[in-house]
C-alpha cells in the first residue's frame, strides 16, 4: 500500500510505525543539549538560591544552612513595603504591557503591510536601532528629555503653558515611560509576523460584505492576531516585572519594585535569605502570569499551534 500524503497521518498505528521507521523519534535528542544546559546553569543555581530563602535570615551568609524556616516569607507578606512592592511590580508590568500594545500595534500593522521591501527593511532597521540603544545611555537621553530641567519641561515652561515642571521622571510615570520605550520593539516584533500572516482576503471579504474598516479591524484582524498579541504582552510583562535598571534610574531610586528590593537586600544588607525569598515570590508571580497566558493562548489560538 503506497503511503500517499492523505493517508499518512501521525495518529494512527500505521502512522506511528511509519514515524518510528522514519526515525522521527530520534529527533527528540535534539532538545537534550539545550535542556541539560538550562538544567545545569539555570535550574541548579537558581534552586540553590531559592533554597536559601528557607534559611534563617543572617547577614553575609550565602550558603544554604539547611535550617528551615518560613520567617522570610512571613516577613514579606506582613510588611507593607514588601507586599506593596509586589503589587506595584504587577501593576507596573501590566500597565506597560497594555500601553506597549496600544502603541505597538499600529506600528506593527504599518510595517506588516508595507509591501515595498526597501521601505520595509528601513522600518525594521529603525525598530532594531531603538532596541540596540544601550539601556543606560538611553535613560540619560530620557533624562535630557523629561527631567525637570529637560527639553519637554523647558519648552512648556518657556511657552508659558505650565508654571512648574511636570514630574515626568524619578517617579512611577517615569518608570512606565522608560519601560514602554524599552519594550516597544519587543512588542512590535512579536506582532509583525502574525499580522502579516493574516490572509488579506479575510479583510476583503468583510469589506465586501459592507463592514467599515474599523469593524473589519476589530472583528477580524485583531482577533486573528491574538497569538502575537499574547506573545508580545507576555514578553513585555516578563521584561517589565523583572527589570532592575529602569526602575532604579528612571524612578530615581524611589519607585520600589521587587527587583530593587532584591538587589537592596542582597547587595546592601547582605541578607541573601530574605532577598532570595523576594526572588521566589517574584518568580512565582511571573510563572502564574505565564500559565494564564498559556491557557488564554490555547483558547484563542483556535488549534493553530
Amino acid at each position, binding site marked *: 500500500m503506497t503511503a500517499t500524503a492523505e493517508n499518512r497521518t501521525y495518529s494512527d498505528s500505521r502512522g506511528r510505525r511509519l514515524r518510528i521507521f522514519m526515525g522521527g523519534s530520534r529527533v527528540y535528542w535534539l532538545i537534550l543539549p539545550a535542556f541539560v544546559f538550562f538544567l545545569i546553569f539555570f535550574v541548579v543555581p537558581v534552586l540553590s538560591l531559592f533554597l536559601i530563602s528557607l534559611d534563617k535570615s543572617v547577614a*553575609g551568609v550565602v550558603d544554604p544552612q539547611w535550617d528551615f524556616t518560613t520567617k522570610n516569607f512571613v516577613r514579606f507578606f506582613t510588611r507593607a513595603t514588601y507586599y506593596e512592592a509586589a503589587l506595584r511590580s504587577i501593576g507596573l508590568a501590566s500597565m506597560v504591557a497594555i500601553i506597549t500594545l496600544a502603541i505597538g500595534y499600529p506600528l506593527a500593522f504599518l510595517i506588516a503591510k508595507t509591501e515595498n521591501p526597501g521601505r520595509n527593511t528601513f522600518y525594521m532597521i529603525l525598530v532594531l536601532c531603538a532596541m540596540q540603544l544601550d539601556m543606560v545611555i538611553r535613560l540619560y537621553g530620557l533624562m535630557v528629555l523629561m*527631567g525637570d530641567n529637560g527639553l519637554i519641561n523647558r519648552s512648556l515652561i518657556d511657552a508659558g503653558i505650565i508654571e512648574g515642571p511636570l514630574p515626568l521622571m524619578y517617579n512611577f510615570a517615569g518608570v512606565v515611560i522608560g519601560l514602554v520605550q524599552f519594550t516597544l520593539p519587543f512588542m512590535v516584533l512579536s506582532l509583525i509576523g502574525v499580522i502579516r500572516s493574516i490572509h488579506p482576503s479575510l479583510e476583503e471579504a468583510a469589506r465586501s460584505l459592507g463592514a467599515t474598516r474599523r469593524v473589519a479591524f476589530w472583528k477580524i484582524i485583531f482577533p486573528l492576531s491574538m497569538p502575537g498579541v499574547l506573545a508580545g504582552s507576555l514578553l513585555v510583562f516578563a521584561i517589565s516585572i523583572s527589570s532592575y535598571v529602569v526602575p532604579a534610574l528612571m524612578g530615581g531610586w524611589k519607585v520600589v519594585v521587587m527587583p530593587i528590593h532584591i538587589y*537592596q537586600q542582597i547587595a546592601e*544588607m547582605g541578607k541573601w535569605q530574605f532577598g532570595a525569598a523576594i526572588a521566589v515570590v517574584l518568580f512565582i508571580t511571573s510563572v502564574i502570569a505565564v500559565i494564564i497566558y498559556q491557557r488564554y493562548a490555547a483558547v484563542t489560538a483556535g488549534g493553530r499551534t
Partner: protein
Amino acid sequence: MKTLRKQLNNPISRRSLLKKGAVVGAASSLPLFNINHVWSQDVTYDGGVFDAEGATLNIGEWGGFWEEFVNKNLLDQFKKDFNCNVSYDSSWPWFPKFVAGGPQNPVYDITNWNLPEMFKTARAGDYFLNKDEILENVPNAKDCWDFAFENGVGVTWGFGQYCYAFRTDLADPHPTTFKSFWDEQYAGGKRGTYITSNTLQMIFFLTASHVFGGDYKDLDAGYEAMRSAMPMKISDFTGNMQTLIERGEVVIGVQWEGEVYNQIDKGVPIAAMVWEERKPILTQTKTISRYSDPVSKKLALALLNRTLSPEYASEFGKTFYMRPTNKNAVIPENLASKGVTNTADATNGMWIPDWFWYLENEDDVVETVNEIFAG
C-alpha cells in the same frame, strides 16, 4: 589528584561531577583547590621593590576621575616597578562580591572603603589583615597618626569634610547652616541626597537626627527630618549627583568637599557649604585581604605602602582636597589656606558615629527611609 583530573577530562562524568559538586559546593564553602591559602598567612613585605613576574593585583576602588588620578599618580609607575598587572574594578558595591565568595576567595586584594560597608564586610567573616599585621608589613603605616587605625579594621589614608553642594546662580540666598537644606526655596524636588546604601546618606541622616533631635541616635528625629525634606532627588553616587547639579535638576545636594572643588575647577557655578553643627568625617580606608594569592598579597602590601607615602598624600590633597593621615605629609596650599594642619589631633572636633550601633539598626533605618523616599 590524578584520578580527579581524569574525571574532569571525561565529559560525561564532568557533568555528574558538576551536579554533585553543585550540591556539595553549595553546602560547604571550601574550594576544591586552596593549597596557596595555607601559605598566604606568611607573606611579608619589607618596603622594597620586587619582581612580581606579571602577577595580577586586584583592586576595588572608586572610578571615574578618581581612577584616572590613581592610575596616573600611582599605578602606572607601580606596574613598571613591580612588573605586574593591575585589575582596577570600580563597580561598587564591594560587600556582596566579598560575601558571595567568602573570606577564602577574596574578590580584591586591596580595597578602598568608606567605613560602614567595611565594617559590614568585616563582621561577615575574617576577610582582612589586622592592624598589627599591617604595621609589621607596611613601613609607611608606622608614620600614620593613631587615629588612622581607630576603626580597628583597615588603615585610613585620607579624610575630608561633608558639605552641601549648591548652585550659586540658582540658590538665593546661599545656604549658611545645616538646616538651610530645608528652606522653602528648594521645595519641589530641588534637594538631593543618596540611596540608603551610600555612606553620604547614612551620615546625612545621622547628622539630621543630631541637629533636629539633639542626639544622633534619635532615629525618629531623623525620620521626621527626611520626611519634611521630601520630595528629594535620590542619586546612587556622588558622580551622578554632580551631573544632577550641573543640569540644574538639583540645586542643593549632600556632597563632600573634594567633588565640589573639582566641579568649580571645571567652571560649574557651584560652591560648597561645609557643615559646622556637626562635622562628620568622610574617610577613605584601605584593607588587605587575608586570603589573597601570596604574590598578589605582597603586591597589595607594596601598593598600600606607596599609598601611605607622604608624597602621594600631598598630591591627593592638591587635587581632591583630601586630608592626609601620614605625619610627614606636607599640607598643600589649597588646604593650608583653609587652616588645615597635619597633627595628631587633626580630627578633633570631627565626628565618626558608632557604626556598629548603626549596623545593628540598619534594617529599620533602611526600610523606614526607603518608605519615606518612595513617598
